[in-house]
C-alpha cells in the first residue's frame, strides 16, 4: 500500500518497520514530527528527554542492551548531543543505533545554518541522506542494518524540505527484531584510556571498510545521460537538480554522505568536461572531490554557501538559462513576520520588561519574538539555556549596578533543558541575577510537546511533575516568586523588587499558553468612549489591536478576550464583553 507521508513521518515508519523499540528525543523544528509519529506505534517505547544529550544517552543504553534504538533532533540539538556521540562512536553498537539530525538551510525556524555533515566526519560516523519521503523510510531501515553490520552509530541527515515535504511511501510490515543478547564487555563499553586506545584502532578499520562499501553500494547511484556535464549531489539538492536539468546532465547521487567513495567519484568525474557539485550550505562534497584529485570540479564558485537552493538557481548556474518571466507588484509589500498569538502569556512579561527598560538576556522559544517590534525587549539570543549563564557573564563583566537592570527570560522546557545548570552557576559563584522562568505549561514553539514540568509523558500518561519552586530552592535560590504576567501592576512590582535584591532570585511567570485546550478565554475586549487615544495598548503588539485613524480598534475576529489590554489601559477605557 502507498501513502502520502511527511518525510519525518516516513522516518518514524522506517524505524517501526526496522523493529526499533526505544526512541528518545528532544523536540526541535524541523525534526519534531519524527518522534511525534513514533508515538503512533504502541510497540515502541517513546519519550521526550530533558535535552538531546540525555536523549542520545538513553538511545545508546538501549543499543548496548540489545535493542534497535533512535534519537532525533535538529541541527543545533546535535551540538548538545555531540559529547556522548563522539564517544559512542568508539563503543559502536549492539542493537542498531540511529541519530536523525534535521538541518535548516534558509533558517525557517533556527538560530544558525550549520551543516551537520561535518559531524559525521569529525565523529567518524556513517551518514545517509534521503531526498524524499520514500527514501526517508528506506534509508532509516538501511541505517539500522549497516549500523549493526559495521558496528557504527548511524546518522540520518535531513533538511527542512525533506522533513516537511509529503510524498508517496510504500508501507511494509514490521520486522520481527529480537533483542540481541546483553553481554558485559568492558573492553568495548568502558571508554577509559586503555580501552579507548584499542577501540580507536577498530574505529579506523571500520571507517576503511565503510569507504569500501561506499564504492559499491546502491545508495550511491550513477545515472548517465547525454551531454558532457556531470552533477554530484545528494538529498533535496538532487531533487532540485533533477527538476532543473532533467536528462541533460548525468548524475552521481550520494545517498551515503559519509564516508564518501573515492574511485566512484574519480571515475564519474573523468567522464565529463564539467562536473558541478550541487550541495546546500558547506562545500562538504566539493572539498572531498578536490582532495581525491577529481578534475573539472565546479562548486561554490557557481553556487552559494547561504540559504536554500532552488531549481531555477541551479538551471541558471549549470545551463545559463533564465527562469520564466513573471509579474511583480510595483510597490513595497509590508512583511508579515511571525508574532506572539493573541492571548500569549509572554506579552505581559515583555510589556513590563520594556516599560522598566531592562536588559533582557533571551533564550530559544516563542518568547524570542519578544525581540521584535513593538515590544523589542530582548537583547540577546544564543542557544538553549544561554539566557541564564550569559547574564551571569554580563553581570560579572559590568558589576552590581548593571545587574540591577538585567534579567534572563527562559521557558519552562528550556529551563529544564539547560537553564538549570546556569542557575547553579549563579548561586555557586555568588551571582545576584534575576531569572524569569516563563512557565506557560508546555513546550510552545515546536507545537505543544509535554516536558518534565507538565506532569504528562509523550503519550499523555500522568507522571511526576518537576516542581520548579522546589528545584530552584534546592540549588540554593533564596528568593522565588510566582507571579501572573497578565496582572501587569503586580508583575512590575515583583520585577522591580527582585532585580534590586543582592542575591539570586527567580520569578516564575505563570500563565498557560493561549493555544492550550485547557485555556478557555471567552468573549472579547472593546474600546469604550473613555478612550483618550494614548495608544498605550498598542505597545502590547497584540495582533487584535490596531490603529483606527487617530484612535484604536480591536478586531473581534482576532481577539480572544484574554483581557491583557484591559489591565494595561490607564483610563479603564477597554472593557471585556462576554458574548
Amino acid at each position, binding site marked *: 500500500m502507498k501513502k502520502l507521508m511527511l518525510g519525518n513521518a516516513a522516518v518514524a515508519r522506517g524505524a517501526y518497520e526496522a523493529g526499533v523499540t526505544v526512541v528518545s528525543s528532544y523536540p526541535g523544528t524541523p525534526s519534531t514530527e519524527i518522534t511525534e509519529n513514533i508515538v503512533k506505534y504502541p510497540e515502541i517505547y517513546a519519550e521526550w528527554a530533558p535535552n538531546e544529550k540525555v536523549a542520545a544517552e538513553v538511545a545508546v543504553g538501549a543499543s548496548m542492551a540489545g535493542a534497535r534504538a533512535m534519537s532525533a533532533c535538529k541541527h543545533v540539538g546535535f551540538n548538545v548531543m555531540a559529547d556522548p556521540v563522539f564517544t559512542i562512536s568508539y563503543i559502536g553498537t549492539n542493537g542498531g543505533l540511529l541519530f536523525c539530525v534535521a538541518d535548516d538551510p534558509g533558517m*525557517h525556524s533556527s538560530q544558525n545554518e550549520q551543516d551537520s555533515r561535518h559531524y559525521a566526519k569529525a565523529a567518524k560516523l556513517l551518514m545517509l541522506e534521503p531526498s524524499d519521503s520514500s527514501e526517508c523510510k528506506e534509508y532509516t531501515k538501511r541505517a539500522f542494518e549497516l549500523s549493526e553490520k559495521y558496528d557504527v552509530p548511524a546518522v540520518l541527515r535531513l533538511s527542512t524540505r525533506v522533513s516537511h515535504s509529503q510524498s508517496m511511501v510504500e508501507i511494509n510490515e514490521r520486522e520481527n527484531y529480537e533483542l540481541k543478547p546483553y553481554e558485559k564487555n568492558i573492553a568495548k563499553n568502558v571508554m577509559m584510556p586503555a580501552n579507548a586506545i584499542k577501540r580507536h584502532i577498530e574505529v579506523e578499520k571500520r571507517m576503511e571498510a565503510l569507504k569500501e562499501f561506499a564504492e559499491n553500494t546502491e545508495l550511491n547511484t550513477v545515472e548517465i545521460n547525454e551531454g558532457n556535464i556531470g552533477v554530484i549531489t545528494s538529498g533535496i539538492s538532487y531533487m532540485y537538480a533533477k527538476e532543473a536539468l532533467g536528462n541533460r546532465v548525468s548524475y552521481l547521487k550520494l545517498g551515503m554522505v559519509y564516508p564518501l567513495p573515492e574511485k566512484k567519484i574519480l571515475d564519474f568525474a573523468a567522464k565529463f568536461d564539467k562536473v558541478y557539485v550541487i550541495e546546500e550550505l558547506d562545500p562538504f562534497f566539493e572539498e572531498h572531490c578536490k582532495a581525491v584529485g577529481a578534475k573539472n570540479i565546479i562548486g561554490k564558485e557557481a553556487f552559494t554557501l547561504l540559504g536554500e537552493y532552488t531549481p531555477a538557481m541551479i538551471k541558471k548556474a549549470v545551463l545559463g538559462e533564465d527562469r520564466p518571466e513573471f509579474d511583480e507588484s510595483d510597490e513595497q509589500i509590508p512583511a508579515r513576520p511571525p508574532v*506572539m498569538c493573541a492571548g500569549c502569556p509572554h506579552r505581559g512579561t515583555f510589556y513590563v520588561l520594556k516599560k522598566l527598560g531592562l536588559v533582557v538576556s533571551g533564550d530559544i522559544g516563542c518568547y524570542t519574538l519578544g525581540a521584535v517590534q513593538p515590544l523589542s525587549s530582548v537583547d540577546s539570543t544564543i542557544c538553549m539555556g544561554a539566557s541564564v549563564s550569559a547574564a551571569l557573564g554580563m553581570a560579572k563583566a559590568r558589576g552590581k549596578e548593571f545587574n540591577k537592570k538585567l534579567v534572563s527570560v527562559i521557558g519552562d522546557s528550556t529551563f529544564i533543558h539547560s537553564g538549570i545548570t546556569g542557575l547553579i552557576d549563579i548561586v555557586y559563584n555568588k551571582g545576584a541575577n534575576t531569572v524569569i522562568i516563563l512557565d506557560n505549561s508546555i513546550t510552545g514553539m515546536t507545537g505543544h510537546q509535554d516536558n518534565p514540568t507538565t506532569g504528562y509523558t509523550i503519550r499523555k500518561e500522568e507522571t511526576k511533575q518537576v516542581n520548579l519552586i522546589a528545584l530552584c530552592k534546592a540549588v540554593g535560590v533564596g528568593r522565588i516568586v510566582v507571579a501572573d504576567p497578565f496582572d501587569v501592576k503586580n508583575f512590575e512590582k515583583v520585577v522591580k523588587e527582585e532585580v534590586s535584591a543582592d542575591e539570586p532570585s527567580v520569578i516564575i511567570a505563570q500563565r498557560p499558553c493561549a493555544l492550550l485546550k485547557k485555556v478557555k478565554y471567552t468573549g472579547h475586549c472593546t474600546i469604550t468612549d473613555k478612550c483618550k487615544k494614548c495608544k498605550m495598548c498598542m505597545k502590547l503588539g497584540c*495582533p487584535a489591536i490596531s490603529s483606527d485613524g487617530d484612535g484604536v480598534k480591536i478586531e473581534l475576529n482576532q481577539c480572544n478576550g484574554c483581557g491583557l489590554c484591559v489591565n494595561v489601559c490607564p483610563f479603564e477605557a477597554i472593557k471585556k464583553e462576554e458574548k
Partner: protein
Amino acid sequence: MAKNIMIVGVGGQGTLLASRILGNTVINEGYDVKVSEVHGMSQRGGSVVTYVKYGDKVYSPIIDRGEADIILAFETLEAYRALPYLKKGGCMIINNQKMNPMPVITGAAKYPENITEKISSKVRTEIVDAVSLAKEAGSIKAVNVVLIGIMAKSTDIAYERWVETIKQTVPEKFIDLNLKAFALGYNL
C-alpha cells in the same frame, strides 16, 4: 508536465487542511504528488506558504517564481506577495479578506490599497468573499474548503472525487459543514 498549485495565507487560517484535501484528491487520481509546507516559527501569525505539485513524476517539492499554475490566496496582502510566483497565463483565486500584519499595526508600514484591482490588472483572477460563503456553510473556519471548491472547478478532477476525499480527510462531525462549503465554492 507537473501541475503547480500554491496556497498562501496567514498562520492559523487553515491552509494545511486545504493542502491535505488537495494532496489526497490528486493521489486518488493516480498522480505522483509532493506537498511542501513549513512548520515552526513561521506559523505564529506569519505568512504561510504551501506548495502542492502533481503529475506523472514530481521531483522538487517547491514552486519558484513564474511557476505556479494556480495560486490560492487566503488573504489579499499574501496574494500580492505571491504574485511573482504565478506562471504567465496562470490564475489567482483570492479570498477578499484583509488581515493587518504587525508592521501595519504598529504604523511602520502601510497596507497597500486596492490590491485585488492591481493584481487583476496584471493577471487572471477570481476574487471571492469566502468568509461570507463559509459563514453560510455554517462556520467561518470553512474558508479553506470554500476556496478548494472554487479551485476544484479549474481542474479536470470530477466533483464526486473531491467529495470522496473530503469525507476521508476531515473529522466525521465536520463532514456536512465541509461538503456544504465545498459545494458553495464549486458552484460559484
